[in-house]
């Protein structure tokens, strides 16, 4: 057990614990806030694993943007402030499938990687990741920019009901 192992264990426990609260809490807003804790702990795991840039992008994009979007959606759909009793389906099938997948994958990984010590990686700084993205991965990078643009246009078209309605009447 080195310092890195202790950090990995602690951050992993925080991530899994708050992740469990995300999927079990009966308050909508609280589940969003527990999601912040879980994503922050995962960003800490990235830091320990040496992926600095991914950790900061995780904080910026996930904690900064995605969770804020989700909380906006919670407010715009007039979610109640207190606990909502009708949030969940019966637990048994979901617990069977989710627990089976989670524990099965965990056993698989534990059997595949055992308790083997791996050397520390050199930290993947922004410089190195930039060389990677604009060297070997430049084509996927361009494709993903087109995908982001189309997702943006799609979200705008979806949230403007007049555009869809006009197209429908013209089609008829």
């Amino acid at each position, binding site marked *: 057990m080195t310092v890195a192992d202790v950090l990995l264990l602690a951050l992993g426990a925080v991530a899994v614990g708050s992740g469990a609260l995300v999927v079990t809490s009966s308050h909508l807003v609280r589940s969003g806030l527990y999601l912040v804790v879980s994503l922050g702990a995962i960003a800490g795991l990235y830091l320990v694993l040496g992926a600095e840039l991914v950790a900061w992008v*995780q904080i910026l994009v996930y904690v900064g943007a995605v969770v804020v979007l989700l909380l906006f959606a919670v407010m715009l*759909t007039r979610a109640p402030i207190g606990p*909502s009793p009708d949030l969940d*389906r019966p637990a048994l099938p979901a*617990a069977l499938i*989710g627990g089976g997948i989670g524990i099965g994958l965990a056993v698989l*990984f534990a059997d595949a*990687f055992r308790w083997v010590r791996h050397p520390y*990686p050199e930290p993947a700084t922004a410089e190195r990741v930039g060389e990677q993205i604009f060297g070997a991965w430049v084509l996927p990078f361009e494709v993903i920019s087109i995908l982001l643009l189309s997702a943006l246009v799609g979200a705008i078209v979806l949230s403007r009901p007049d555009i869809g309605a006009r197209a429908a009447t013209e089609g008829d």
Partner: protein
Amino acid sequence: MHVVIPYVVAALLFGLGVYGVLRRRNAVLVLMAVELMLNAVNLILVTADVSLRSALTGVAVESWARPAAAAPGTGGVLALFVIVLAAAEVGVGLAIILQYYRMRKAVVVDDVRLDRDEDTDEERVAG
């Protein structure tokens, strides 16, 4: 460091995400559970960058198992791509949820009618 710890954490997070998607009835909470699953995949990619790189040290550079792109940091690059995909997914998903809420005043996944019902649709939109 022992890479089995982040691998097991990622597996448990993925299981929690599956549980949340199956259990929750509110569409926004389903999206949150999907985010948990995507984060588990990202964690596996970043961890594989650490563990598999050291496993590939003996492999010749030209061989099939070690293409030129498998330089240090590849897992992080793929994780960045997945983060971008997740942002696009959550944007479009929330647009769909908000549009549905505007039409039906509900975000319960169970009540979404998958068969097309023209009369009620036009009624609700007009009303």
